[in-house]
């Protein structure tokens, strides 16, 4: 058994994780990046449209405060407002940092950054690299990370346990898929940056590795989750595959039309039209389908058309090359003379591991679990509230990745890793996993259970929710949790055992799914991405509160915490 010692262990290797690693390494820390992904393939690589940052306030009459206000309003006032201020002030620095390591941002002829206007943003303030922004960012930062001798990457290591004892973080245990062994990583400081959990749902823009097990593992380690009921559906996923068509298309002027050729957004968001926030547009598409105004795909899915035919083809080829490619490969259409078939799909989790504004990971009482930070989609800093604005997530990942990495390095200085505690945890985990591999009976297949999970989440935690549907889904989920004990792993080996990985993932996913459904059931109002047919209005008197989830005696429990309203009082949200 092997336990490696570091100053800082970063879990996850998307933009938030790698940004944290770089920030910590620059402060002299020895950093381990432990990630289930191979190479720069975390889902940040699939980010398309861009990164929000007020880089040229004078060019557009923009300001940090306006970016923060848009974020607060976009999040339907469930945003911790000082977190939005942090995002707005820090994001431009990150654009310059990424510029310095070679991200080829689109620039205007005068040398300034090109800007796009995204949904819910009141100014053009999204910088971008064509419509493959994440690809360029991940390529650059991965290469940058490789240049640090004090950052070690441990790829295809699935972290199965966070080691927390006595209110402090001590390290992680990971299944090294390539060698088929467990490894411990002991470090006084850690950053969790494991991304979202779209694969809990059937229709998602997220990749196959975005399973969200860490949400569940974090609760097991005594951490709290917050606002998990807020799951973002991106309005324009390609039908039927669910592949993302960037909001950049609408930022460049694309229309959404129903089967009568009508730009239906005029009935839902008369001012902002297609550039209303994502929750508003996704709900509009859902309602158009309900009214029979949608097209019906051969797969049975209802969809609407994304129309770019009125845009200059040369400009489209220049600025949206990926959109053209994806439409052709995955829907067989040429967007220059056909409608692109799109519908909403799960895209982002506003909730996550509860942190304070500095990204410090908290327990259910709001106490810091010493030595531990969370960043990016895995975290809930409170910045997105009930709905994230497009292009705020790359900004979030870079900003809180850096803040967490810097703080973790400072914290680790002068502290020693507790190797023996982690060794004990590795031993316990070894036994647990041996048990899973040796289990004889049981006729359940992990992929069968995953499919059931995906269907029940759509039923009880979808775009439109109701008490009845959520209760129904929770019942089915309880049943699934029982059946998880009857899953048989048919692969008897330990090297690159994907079934073992899938079982471990599913354990965490089921816990995370329960928080989503519980929140969907308990929150008796409609706010942002959470829409209840039986409570259709926002209710600030009762529900201007965060939901907090934690494990108590093995069961998911919930409580509420106040929202940090410091600058802008809640107002009616019109677009």
């Amino acid at each position, binding site marked *: 058994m092997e336990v490696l010692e570091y100053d800082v262990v970063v879990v996850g290797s998307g933009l938030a994780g790698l940004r944290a690693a770089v920030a910590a390494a620059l402060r002299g820390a020895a950093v381990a990046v432990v990630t289930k992904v191979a190479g720069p393939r975390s889902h940040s690589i699939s980010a398309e449209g861009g990164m929000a940052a007020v880089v040229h306030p004078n060019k557009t009459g923009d300001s940090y405060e306006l970016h923060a206000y848009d974020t607060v309003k976009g999040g339907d006032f469930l945003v911790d407002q000082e977190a939005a201020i942090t995002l707005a002030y820090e994001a431009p620095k990150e654009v310059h940092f990424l510029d310095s390591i070679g991200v080829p941002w689109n620039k205007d002829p005068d040398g300034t950054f090109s800007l796009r206007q995204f949904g819910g943003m009141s100014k053009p303030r999204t910088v971008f690299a064509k419509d493959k922004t994440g690809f360029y960012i991940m390529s650059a930062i991965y290469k940058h990370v490789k240049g640090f001798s004090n950052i070690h990457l441990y790829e295809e290591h699935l972290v199965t346990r966070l080691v927390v004892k006595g209110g402090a973080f001590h390290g992680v245990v990971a299944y090294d898929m390539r060698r088929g062994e467990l490894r411990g990583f002991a470090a006084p400081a850690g950053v969790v940056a494991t991304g979202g959990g779209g694969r809990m749902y059937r229709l998602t823009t997220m990749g196959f590795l975005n399973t969200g097990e860490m949400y569940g593992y974090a609760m097991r380690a005594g951490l709290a989750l917050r606002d998990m009921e807020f799951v973002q559906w991106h309005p324009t996923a390609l039908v039927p595959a669910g592949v993302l068509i960037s909001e950049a298309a609408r930022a460049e002027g694309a229309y959404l039309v129903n089967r009568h050729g009508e730009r239906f957004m005029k009935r839902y968001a008369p001012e902002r039209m297609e550039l209303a926030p994502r929750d508003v547009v996704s709900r509009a598409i859902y309602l158009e389908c309900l009214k029979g105004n949608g097209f019906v795909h051969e797969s049975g899915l209802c969809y609407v058309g994304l129309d770019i035919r009125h845009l200059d083809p040369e400009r489209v080829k220049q600025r949206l090359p990926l959109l053209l490619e*994806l439409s052709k490969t995955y829907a*067989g259409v040429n967007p220059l003379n056909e409608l692109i078939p799109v519908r909403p799909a799960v895209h982002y989790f506003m909730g996550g591991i509860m942190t304070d504004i500095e990204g410090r990971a908290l327990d259910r009482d709001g106490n810091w679990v010493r030595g531990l930070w969370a960043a990016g989609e895995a975290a809930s800093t409170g910045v997105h509230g009930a709905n994230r604005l497009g292009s705020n997530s790359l900004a979030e990942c870079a900003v809180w990745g850096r803040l967490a990495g810097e703080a973790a390095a400072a914290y680790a200085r002068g502290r020693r890793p507790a190797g023996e505690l982690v060794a004990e945890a590795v031993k316990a985990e070894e036994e647990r996993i041996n048990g899973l591999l040796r289990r004889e009976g049981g006729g359940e297949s992990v992929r069968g259970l995953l499919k059931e999970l995906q269907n029940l989440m759509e039923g009880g935690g979808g775009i439109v929710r109701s008490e009845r549907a959520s209760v129904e889904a929770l019942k089915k989920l309880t049943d699934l949790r029982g059946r998880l004990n009857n899953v048989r792993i048919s692969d008897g080996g330990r090297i690159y055992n994907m079934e073992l990985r899938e079982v471990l993932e599913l354990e965490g996913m089921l816990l995370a799914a329960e928080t989503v459904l519980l929140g969907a059931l308990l929150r008796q109002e409609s706010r942002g991405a959470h829409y209840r047919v039986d409570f259709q209005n926002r209710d600030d008197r009762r529900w201007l509160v965060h939901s907090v989830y934690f494990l108590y005696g093995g069961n998911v429990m919930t409580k509420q915490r106040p929202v940090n309203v410091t600058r802008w009082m809640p107002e009616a949200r019109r677009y």
Partner: protein
Amino acid sequence: MKVKIHVRRGAAGRQYYQTYEVEVEDPRITVLDLLIKVREDLDGTLSMRYACRMGVCGACAMVINGVPRLACATKLSDLGTSEIFVGPLPNRNIIKDLVTD
């Protein structure tokens, strides 16, 4: 339509072909989706990499009918045959099945 997929499996030095038969309705299905179908319905012990499934990340690069390509960006209809040979990328250390160092 019945599709035969021959997958080169095993670790270095102990490789063999295993053949799976999958029923396909739509020839626009990608090779990645075919392999996922194999994993889901026939054989969960088959190891491979896949992540973004939209032709961006490159995780599912493999040799398909003699040519290195991305499984998620290669459609059955592109291949013009219902007999598919799939193997790991050449000149690399094989960890298991389609997964290389």
